[in-house]
């Protein structure tokens, strides 16, 4: 990353989220090389939110540690993409949370999914004489509590 005047860097670091977003929008529109430093600062703030939201949401969705870390990396890259747009963006922690949730909720190959019914129709045969046996009390319907 290009190096800038330390005083200017400090001034950028001291800006609040809304001010920093305004500077980002200005520098990206002007193709100002300071955009990179502004973006870096914004991302570091967003990354903290991404990390926490991915972890909380990922654990609730049954993702493993490795998947959560991959979701964090994915969300960080997507936040960079989003912040390269010319249009003004929401506050960075809101944006980061939105992206983090989307990254956790995408399809994960190893994610535990709910059991699904077989697509094949089961082949069932009625035992000959069973209905009569039940009626006469020779056989009783299965009771899961007693069996």
């Amino acid at each position, binding site marked *: *990353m*290009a190096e800038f005047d330390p005083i200017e860097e400090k001034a950028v*670091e*001291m*800006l*609040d*989220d809304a001010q920093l977003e305004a500077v980002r929008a200005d520098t*990206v529109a002007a*193709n*100002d*090389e300071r*955009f*990179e430093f502004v*973006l*870096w600062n914004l*991302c*570091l*703030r967003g*990354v*903290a*939110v*991404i*990390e*926490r*939201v*991915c*972890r*909380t*949401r990922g654990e*609730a*969705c049954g993702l493993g540690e490795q998947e*959560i*870390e*991959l*979701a*964090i*990396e*994915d*969300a*960080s*890259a*997507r936040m*960079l*993409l*989003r912040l*390269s*747009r*010319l249009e003004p963006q*929401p*506050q*960075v*922690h*809101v944006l980061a*949370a*939105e992206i983090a*949730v989307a990254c956790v909720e*995408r399809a994960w*190959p190893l994610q535990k999914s709910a059991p699904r019914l077989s697509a094949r129709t089961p082949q069932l045969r009625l035992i000959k004489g069973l209905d009569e046996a039940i009626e006469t009390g020779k056989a009783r319907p299965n009771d899961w509590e007693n069996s």
Partner: protein
Amino acid sequence: MSAEDAVERAFWQALEDLKAGSEKPIESYLRLVPSGQREELGRMLADLLAARGPAVGPSAGESEGYRRAAAVVDEVLGARGAAGILPGTLKAMRNARGIEPDAVVERLAADFDVRGEEGRRALARDYHRLETGKLLGSKLSRRLLGSLAAIFDVDPDEVRAAARPAAKGPSLSSAPAMGRGAGARAPSPPSPSERLPDPEVELVERLFHGGPDA
């Protein structure tokens, strides 16, 4: 509606309210979910609603997840060049999602109906050059960027914005594989054994080097 759906809905509601500048007290969102889900939602909302000042909290900086995320940001910005941050973000998303470069090339080949071996080789070569920052963002075609956006499930406008060259990026020149060097000799007529350019290779050249409208 399941408890997980309720958490999700409440979280999105809070996000929308924040965007609109009309966020409510945290309790009003917690009331929207069953009591067993309130702790999870509470943690998520605390992250979302906490006012964030200039500095990053020290606890955030200590976790492995934070370090990995910060490393992605560093790598992407460090590789910013003639195609902006697009090369770095493509590589980072691909790695995070476990997508092999060949799979991206396959999808591109399907999108642009490139079936021949030469065309696919050209696609693989140019995609590799794109991901390693060796191409000019200004020469990438809109339809290529649109296809990449679909492959990575992101907004095409974001991909286009990310491909804008850095202000002082390395001055690369677009060098289509089909181009011939301007030598001192006058061009000689093609020999009968010389083949015509493969139309699929030409298509790939246009996609990666032909400019936005190619």
